[in-house]
């Protein structure tokens, strides 16, 4: 169901959906020149029913009621929309940028935005003013209590990537935390506006660089559905095999680095060797180790090479033998 609702009736509609056990799937901003639109997707898990609610606002006014009071999960989606479209949500619990730095004043996904010069201020890390205000509001005046704020990340060995958490701690007990995202935001959506559909394929590799083939496939599927292209059965089989290999390689990275965080270095060396063997097959089949761009709309870019089947079946036999070894290496380790 797709419905355009007025800002006044949004809350009533959301309450009806909540009573029917609909979960919020996503909140998306759309620039429908000249109006701005916010699209909420709801899904009912019991029978898969989907509902779309659209609310629209004037470009100049750009003010809408928040959904976060009914669905708490809408908070981050709306913060992203605040960044990208400059829409103000009244009564939003934490109305501050999610992906962009707090000092920027542009809204990139509006269609009339055409790039901004990159100005790097000297130092912008530290506790944002809004967090200090909030702490003061809760009665955490400096020196009055034993709890304090601690910054963790974005360069931290256990964040794997760039996540920053502002921890609220008392001694060694974590009372709460506030996540700060956007340290690897690359503006891919804006870049996609200027690209042709085929040109955008390599960017999908870089969205999930651990299993790029799965992302290639998702993107190719969209193009196929939109254009009505049917891939050949052979291509479909090749896609499944390659995507599954990519998934295994991705899980091997997870296993190795997760144990690395716990202080076990040895499993990392084993899992990465197995991953290298999968990457060798990728390289022979696609020409690249990681950023493959192999699954394209309509099929795959090129056919498999001669010894692919024997190599993969040999590898799988070897990996099956490895699994108990991994378990023994980790769970059988006295330190663990």
């Amino acid at each position, binding site marked *: 169901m797709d419905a355009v609702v007025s800002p006044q009736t949004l809350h009533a509609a959301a309450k009806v959906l909540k009573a029917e056990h609909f979960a919020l799937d996503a909140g998306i901003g759309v620039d429908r020149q000249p109006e701005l639109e916010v699209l909420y997707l709801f899904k009912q898990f019991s029978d898969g029913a989907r509902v779309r609610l659209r609310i629209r606002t004037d470009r100049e006014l750009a003010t809408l009621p928040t959904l976060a009071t009914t669905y708490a999960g809408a908070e981050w989606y709306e913060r992203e929309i605040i960044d990208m479209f400059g829409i103000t949500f009244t009564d939003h619990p934490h109305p501050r940028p999610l*992906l*962009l*730095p707090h000092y*920027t004043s*542009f809204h*990139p996904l509006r269609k009339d*935005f*055409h*790039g*901004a010069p*990159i100005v*790097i*201020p*000297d*130092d*912008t*890390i530290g506790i944002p003013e809004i967090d200090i205000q909030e702490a003061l509001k809760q009665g955490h005046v400096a020196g009055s209590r034993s709890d304090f704020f601690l910054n963790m990340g*974005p*360069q*931290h*060995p256990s964040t*794997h*990537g*760039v996540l920053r958490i502002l921890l609220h701690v008392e001694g060694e007990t974590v009372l709460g935390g506030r996540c700060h995202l*956007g*340290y*690897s*935001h*690359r*503006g*891919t959506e*804006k*870049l996609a*506006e*200027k690209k042709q559909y085929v040109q955008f394929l*390599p*960017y999908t*590799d*870089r969205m999930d*660089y*651990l299993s790029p083939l799965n992302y290639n496939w998702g993107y190719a599927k969209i193009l196929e559905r939109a254009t009505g292209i049917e891939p050949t059965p052979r291509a479909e089989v090749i896609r499944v095999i390659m995507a599954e290999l990519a998934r295994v390689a991705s899980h091997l*990275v997870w296993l*190795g*680095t997760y144990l690395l965080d716990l202080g076990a270095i040895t499993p*990392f*060396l*084993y899992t*990465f*060797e197995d*991953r*290298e063997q999968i*990457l060798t097959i990728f390289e022979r089949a696609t020409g690249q*180790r*990681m*950023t493959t761009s192999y699954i394209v709309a309509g099929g795959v870019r090129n056919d498999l090479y001669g010894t692919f089947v024997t190599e993969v079946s040999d590898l799988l036999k070897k990996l099956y033998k490895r699994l108990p070894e991994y378990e023994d290496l980790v769970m059988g380790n006295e330190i663990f």
Partner: protein
Amino acid sequence: MDEQLPILNPDGQYPDSVNSETVPPIVRFLPLQKALDLARANSLWPLTFGIACCAIEMMAASASRYDTDRFGAGVFRNSPRQADLMIVAGTVNLKMAPIIKRLYDQMPSPKWVIALGSCAICGGPFEQEDNYAVVQGVEKIVPVDIFVPGCPPRPEALIHAILELQERIKAGTTHALEPGAVAPVTEQPVEFVDLIERLKKQAQRKSAQ
């Protein structure tokens, strides 16, 4: 030694005309320096610092098949205060840039930087006119010694970069700052000369010779 030490101000600071990077050390022993350079070149400790795709290849380079430990560069440190090599592996964006600068400043001198992959070199695939998020090259923030092209570069490319850096450290031709010096803050970011233009000029110079 002909170099004259600049005179300190009454408040113990160098005058503004003196760039801290050019201040010579007070005592300098050439043979000892050479020995130190040799030792440093063969025990590079990189900073654990991955931003995007290239970080996975950096991990692969340090893992069992490629094993940068063979060249003394496998001891990845989690704290910048223990590291002397920063491998910028991935896309540097607007929000990350000040943090990279801060991490670089926290590393003790002498220190070196490898820009791994197209994004760290020039923005890579994210270089476009309506870009608002990606810094077009980490060179605008910190001085870079080695650029490794690729998207992402293979682990062999990173190993080659480390070997090249070792050669340069031994020869004393890196951007490494003397102990105690602080990287100068550039007001204007370094503008990239178009690569083709640069190559053309180079070719012209060669043909003129």
